[in-house]
């Protein structure tokens, strides 16, 4: 528990969208709506085959990995098994679990692959995740004080968050969180901070804990008791391999997820922005609050297509295999409206995140780099800042 509650100071920097008129924002919204409708209408057999194939690959890898680890005494089996299991867990959580739980595949009407029936290889139950992630994070993306994903209530990730002495150790907190990310999310989904400030009742917490325990004991038994026991004399090695696979998955997903909203160029927002926010303004916030990762097709699959974080935040329920094809069009829209489309390689973006975390461990840090503000050639009306008063463009 943080010793002092998290508070925010008012924003001092202008938004990168400050130059857009209300009409331009609505026009941008209409363009994005059209892209969404076009893709959703074209979903078909090829998409269904894609997700079935990914699921079959994931299950095959998991069975192969666990099979190899029955012989974990032999180093090649240990290494190959651990790797296969790591990849299987990453696919399960990212390209499959995260996206199925978003309802991206509900259109197939397949009870086997549906957001209401899916459960994933993760300590947090799907139901708890859907609430904090699908609803809170995706609705209130990067709104300070509303999006609890901003620093996950343990870190200072944006300069507007007031500094607390505990933030001094946040570079270490980050490394620790990376290793146990799965558990971090599980604790976070229990919303202890909301119990503390009274917005979540003790009874609700108790109920959540019960659901969690029912899942947790099975998750733990499988990785640290049953499969190790099945490998007989190799018990400890198999348990170690399973732990390693879980940690590899944790480090990987932590890196990908932190690169989604925290690198330079991404923006955070004031809470009062939400009041009367239009669909177009919502789209703008999603675009400015997210950042993409560049890489190969396999890399995109391994990130659960969160490498297309911007596209994902615009259309959270669009099947992830379609993000790559709309990405150039989204980038073109961003260029045309003078909005930042942040993208970079994983090492580069993660480096920026770590730099920010280190800088913000100390007070201040208000001049976060990267938020480029480009003026549009033609201004048809007064530009608006987030609080509604006209502003001049920042240079």
């Amino acid at each position, binding site marked *: 528990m943080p010793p002092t509650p998290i508070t925010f100071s008012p924003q001092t920097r202008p938004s990168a969208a400050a130059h857009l008129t209300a009409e331009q924002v609505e026009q941008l919204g209409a363009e994005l709506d059209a892209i969404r409708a076009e893709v959703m209408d074209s979903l*078909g057999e090829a998409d269904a085959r894609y997700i079935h194939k990914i699921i079959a690959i994931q299950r095959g890898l998991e069975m192969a990995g666990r099979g190899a680890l029955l012989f974990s005494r032999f180093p090649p089996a240990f290494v190959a098994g651990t790797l296969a299991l790591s990849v299987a867990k990453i696919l399960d959580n990212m390209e499959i679990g995260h996206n199925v739980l978003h309802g991206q595949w509900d259109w197939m*009407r397949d009870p086997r692959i549906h957001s209401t029936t899916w459960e994933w290889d993760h300590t947090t139950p799907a139901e708890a995740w859907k609430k904090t992630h699908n609803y809170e994070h995706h609705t209130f993306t990067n709104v300070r004080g509303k999006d609890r994903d901003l620093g996950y209530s343990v870190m200072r990730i944006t300069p507007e968050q007031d500094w607390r002495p505990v933030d001094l150790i946040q570079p270490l907190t980050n490394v620790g969180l990376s290793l146990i990310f799965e558990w971090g999310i599980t604790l976070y989904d229990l919303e202890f901070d909301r119990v503390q400030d009274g917005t979540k009742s003790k009874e609700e917490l108790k109920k959540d804990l019960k659901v969690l325990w029912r899942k947790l004991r099975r998750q733990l038994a499988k990785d640290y008791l049953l499969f190790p026991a099945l490998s007989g004399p190799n018990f400890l090695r198999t348990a170690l391999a399973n732990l390693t696979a879980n940690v590899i998955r944790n480090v990987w997903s932590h890196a990908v997820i932190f690169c989604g909203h925290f690198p330079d160029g991404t923006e955070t927002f004031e809470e009062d922005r939400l009041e009367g926010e239009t669909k177009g303004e919502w789209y703008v916030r999603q675009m400015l609050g997210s950042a993409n990762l560049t890489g190969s097709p396999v890399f995109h699959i391994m990130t659960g297509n969160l490498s297309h974080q911007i596209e994902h935040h615009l259309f959270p329920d669009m099947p992830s295999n379609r993000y790559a094809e709309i990405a150039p069009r989204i980038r073109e829209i961003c260029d045309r409206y003078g909005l930042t489309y942040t993208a970079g390689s994983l090492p580069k973006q993660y480096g920026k995140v770590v730099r920010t975390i280190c800088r913000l461990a100390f007070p201040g840090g208000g001049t976060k780099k990267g938020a480029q503000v480009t003026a549009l050639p033609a201004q048809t009306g007064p530009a608006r800042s987030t609080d509604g008063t006209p502003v001049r463009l920042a240079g």
Partner: protein
Amino acid sequence: MGVLGSIGQRARHVAGWFTQPLLPDDLLGTLNPLWSRVEPHARVVGVRRETADTTTLLLRPGPAHPVHVAGQFVGIGLRIDGVWQWRTYSVTSAPGDRDLAVTVTALPGGTVSGALAHRTPVGALLRIGPPAGDFVLPTPVPEKLLFLTAGSGITPVMGMLRDLSARSESLSGAVLVHCDRTPADLVFGPELRALAAETGLTLIERHTAVEGRLTPETLTDVVPDWAARQTWACGPTAMLDALTEHWARAGDPEALHLERFVPPAAVAEGLTGGRVSFTTSGIAADAGPGTPLMAAGEAAGALLPNGCRMGICHTCVGKLRSGAVRNLHTGDLTDTPGQAVRTCVSGAAGDVEIEL
């Protein structure tokens, strides 16, 4: 079943700890869809063209598929453009047959019936639901039987006749009156004529293109002792409605057994539509006048229990939490919270909440 079943259940329970968070059935289904008990599949092992628009599909379900009773139907699921679509078809094979047969007539503009009748090759995998329906013969089978069928209404009766002829040599106590436009339209024509010759079944073919529709009056001409027979009838709504009326007036309504094939059309008066919210899934959708709640929910991505989709099987029922619904066929209003509502034949009467 008892001991083996409980051992099997325990084995699945133990295996579930190893397959967490999946069920063992998920993995079996990935390896071979036919092995899944939760989502049973069947493979198409034979395709027989019956008429220009009607095809019999011979299906081989997985080992866990329950045996049907002659006259029952099964749900058939087909993936079209990535989306699972379900329809209900009578089983035309006898319960003892190795393969299960369904006979599908392609309806004009019917995407699912068209795909099943014309574009489903041998080797295709379909999903299959459990057999259901109470359009079946009692035990012991009554001696004097009358079957009244029209068009594809012959399908459940074909299943019954195949079953009866497999069990006894003589069907001399049974009469089948079948209506179709022309002799070429009768789906099982040659087989029925052969069956009549072999078993003594009285087969009366009525070709409506020449003779006009079967009416209760003409029935008396062709089957004078109709009132003394237990009758099973299946065909278009208009025919079944006329028969119901006739039996109520001049016969014993208890002796008439009906199977309605088409989902009842939205004929009720005063249909308003409204917004339907499914409380378990949290999905809400606008259901226009005449749109079943199920169709509205599915279009919005809800996963709803479903079966026959025509108000017969009660697989789709959900509790009414608030608001009111109207039966699209009869117009009956249901507005008591807690009452069970069949979502496939109910439309919204204003805003409504269903516990599904």
